[in-house]
């Protein structure tokens, strides 16, 4: 599927002799760039080679080799395969790497995450605070030598459970009798909590007094983590001038469930059910991304029937996601409940199908490496056909008729700016928000995975980039998904549903892989590093919601606070995926 990177990148090593070297480790691709020349090389990558969309930044702790590595994945919004480049630095504190925030502002949150979890200091980053954990937390948890309170062993299955099954409660082994670790001789009574001093400090630059002689106060308000319109436990701290937002910082991590750390301890297959819980509206597409990444590493084919099943369940998932999006958007706009009741009605029908084929309504755990776990029974297939051919088309039209021309909706959303195409790309925004800004970038087309290249569909795109377009594009996408579904249902062949024998453990050769899909929220990707053992050495989720939030500050400044709720709704964030 992915063309070898060499076609693009011969230039890079030749162009910067002595600065850029091609990756030589088995199973790895890309280039290693000298730390001191990173900015120079990155500028060339963006400006001359045209990789305008930097999607992922993450660190890898090569503990045994005493090295830390920062891995960048860059793509072109015109389509095609990506470019991987890396920086290696010795693993002695402080681990410092230059920040690329001036070249791709979209690295902001991801660099902060790498600082928080791996302790990589990005020099030149203007606001390098912790993001998922709180300020004052002891250590950088994703480092390989950092152990949590309930640490038992480096890898699963744990000896205590298997093969002997001598199970005990993790609490019994921990000195604090809980999931806690404290420095030796720590005295809690002497601790002075940092509070949010740094956070408010970061906002302080917006609180300067105006110079027009009016002594108006700027006020700081907190929205979240408990707020009905923040779609979970998201928190935004804003500075207001009257009703206009003049400063904003998103605060994340209230649902940080340590996917990366747990994922590095699990075996490859054990991670599958954990991916369900990332974007919990779309367990099917999450599974898809992870399965792709592991299949790339293993180099195995996918059974033909399973390829079609994958498309069918993913597109069904997209349809219900967008329906819920419309329902909750209307909730946020003040149309409490009625539109979302319509949306949930259809969602229930789709969840019934998921339950029938996978056993669970929400947490499907349905994909396996090389295929899927169960076939779609005829009864479920009939339900899918009924839905796709009759019901969903009509229901989408109904929602469209009911809502799109509603006067309140139009006056709240028409011509209220969201983001421009250039800014969307700079801030690494992907998914419907990018397409509503006029960039026809859809990974299903731009870098096809699975068998999306066999279907006839249009990449939905809108050109005004206002809130209305962001709403309309969801309806367009539902219609396109239904088109794909119709074709997939017609073409699906009989046959086995997995190219491999069912196994609890899979053999994964050493190497790295980046599996990316167009999830309903944007680009969802899994970056895996394998060292040939049964557990991944590095398991990193590149979530769409999290990276899209890079642009939130930029969009919100200048907007009215009442519009902020709608702007946030347009990102369609899901905290499970955002905070992981």
């Amino acid at each position, binding site marked *: 599927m992915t063309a070898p990177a060499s076609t693009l990148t011969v230039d890079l090593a030749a162009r910067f002799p002595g600065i850029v070297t091609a990756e030589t480790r088995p199973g790895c691709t890309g280039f290693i760039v000298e730390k001191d020349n990173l900015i120079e090389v990155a500028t060339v990558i963006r400006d001359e080679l045209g990789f305008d969309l930097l999607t992922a930044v993450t660190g890898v702790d090569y503990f045994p080799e005493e090295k830390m590595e920062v891995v960048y994945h860059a793509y072109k919004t015109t389509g095609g395969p990506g470019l991987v480049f890396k920086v290696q630095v010795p693993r002695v504190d402080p681990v410092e790497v230059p920040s690329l925030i001036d070249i791709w502002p979209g690295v902001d949150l991801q660099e902060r995450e790498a600082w928080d979890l791996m302790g990589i200091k990005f020099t030149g980053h203007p606001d390098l605070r912790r993001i998922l954990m709180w300020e004052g937390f002891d250590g950088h948890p994703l480092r390989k030598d950092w152990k949590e309170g309930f640490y038992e062993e480096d890898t699963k299955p744990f000896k205590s459970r298997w093969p002997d099954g001598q199970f005990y409660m993790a609490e019994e082994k921990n000195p604090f009798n809980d999931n806690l670790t404290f420095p030796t001789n720590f005295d809690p009574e002497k601790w002075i*909590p940092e509070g949010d001093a740094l956070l408010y400090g970061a906002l302080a630059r917006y609180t300067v007094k105006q110079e027009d002689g009016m002594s108006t106060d700027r006020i700081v308000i907190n929205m979240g983590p408990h707020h009905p319109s923040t779609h*979970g436990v998201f928190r935004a701290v804003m500075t207001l001038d009257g009703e206009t937002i003049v400063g904003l910082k998103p605060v994340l991590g209230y649902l940080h469930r340590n996917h990366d750390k747990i994922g590095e301890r699990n075996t490859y297959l054990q991670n599958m059910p954990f991916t369900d819980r990332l974007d919990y509206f779309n367990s099917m597409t999450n599974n898809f991304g992870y399965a792709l990444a592991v299949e790339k590493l293993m180099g195995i084919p996918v059974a033909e029937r399973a390829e079609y099943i994958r498309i069918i369940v993913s597109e069904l998932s997209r349809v219900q996601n967008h329906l819920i999006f419309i329902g909750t958007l209307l909730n946020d706009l003040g149309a409490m409940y009625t539109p979302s009741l319509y949306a*949930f009605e259809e969602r229930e029908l789709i969840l019934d199908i998921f339950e029938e084929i996978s056993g669970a309504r929400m947490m499907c755990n349905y994909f396996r490496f090389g295929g899927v776990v169960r076939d779609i029974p005829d009864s479920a297939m009939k339900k899918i056909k009924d839905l796709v051919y009759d019901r969903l088309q009509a229901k989408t039209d109904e929602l469209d008729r009911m809502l799109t021309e509603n006067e309140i909706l139009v006056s709240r959303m028409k011509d209220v700016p969201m983001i421009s195409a250039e800014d969307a790309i700079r801030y690494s925004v992907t998914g419907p928000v990018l397409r509503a800004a006029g960039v026809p970038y859809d990974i299903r087309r731009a870098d096809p995975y699975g068998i999306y290249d066999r279907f006839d569909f249009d990449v939905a795109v809108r050109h005004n980039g206002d809130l209305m377009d962001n709403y309309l594009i969801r309806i367009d996408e539902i219609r396109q998904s239904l088109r794909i579904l119709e074709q997939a249902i017609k073409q699906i062949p009989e046959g086995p549903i997995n190219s491999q024998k069912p196994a609890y453990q899979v053999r994964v050769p050493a190497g790295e892989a980046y599996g990316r899909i167009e999830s309903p929220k944007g680009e969802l990707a899994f970056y895996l590093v394998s060292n040939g053992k049964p557990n991944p050495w590095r398991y990193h989720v590149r979530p769409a919601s999290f990276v899209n939030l890079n642009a939130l500050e930029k969009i919100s400044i200048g907007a009215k606070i009442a519009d902020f709720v709608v702007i946030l709704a347009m990102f369609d964030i899901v905290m499970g995926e955002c905070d992981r």
Partner: protein
Amino acid sequence: MDNEKLSLPQYDIPEDMQHAIAVTTLDRLYNWGRRSSVWPLMFGLACCAIEMIAAQTARYDMARFGMEVMRPTPRQADLLLVSGTVTKKMVPAIVRLYNQMPEPKYVVAMGACASGGGPFKEGYNVVAGIDKFLPVDVYIPGCPPTPQALIAGMIKLQEKIDKQTMKTNRWYDKKKVDANYVPVPVLGPDLMDPRRYDELKAAAAAKATQQESA
């Protein structure tokens, strides 16, 4: 009014007055009113919250049990439905919300995560069950519990309310009225529960002696 549930059968009411009079105890009347208007706090934590929303929609319709009025503010809520993974970063906020709720108040732990940490129990930012901080009335198993399971759990809560009596309710007892105040945890190098400071200090000191002898 549901006569069958409210009336105490041992009082004989003349037949011609049965449609007009019901004899009951104050407790029963009071509990009947409370159990039929449990207002949950509109508060979702994680995946389980989605099933909580699904339970509110037309297909499952929790309104049948008088539980459809979700209040966004804790001041108006009776029930804290902990629907999802409780993280260390979030738990101070949850405890604060709980403290702000007026009595009588109840806590339901929905799902594996809220009950005991669930699939993420070992995570460094995860609290292994909300019952480490709040008194839980009903635990609902599942990951996520289906809307039916959630409703079953709510019915269990109603049964619990039915059994309470005004004589011993803590919220009418001056001495016990603050009994359910929970000190807000502090975010230090790790999560610190003010009720356990002495214990933490002792364990941290023991760790030091252990290291010295090693």
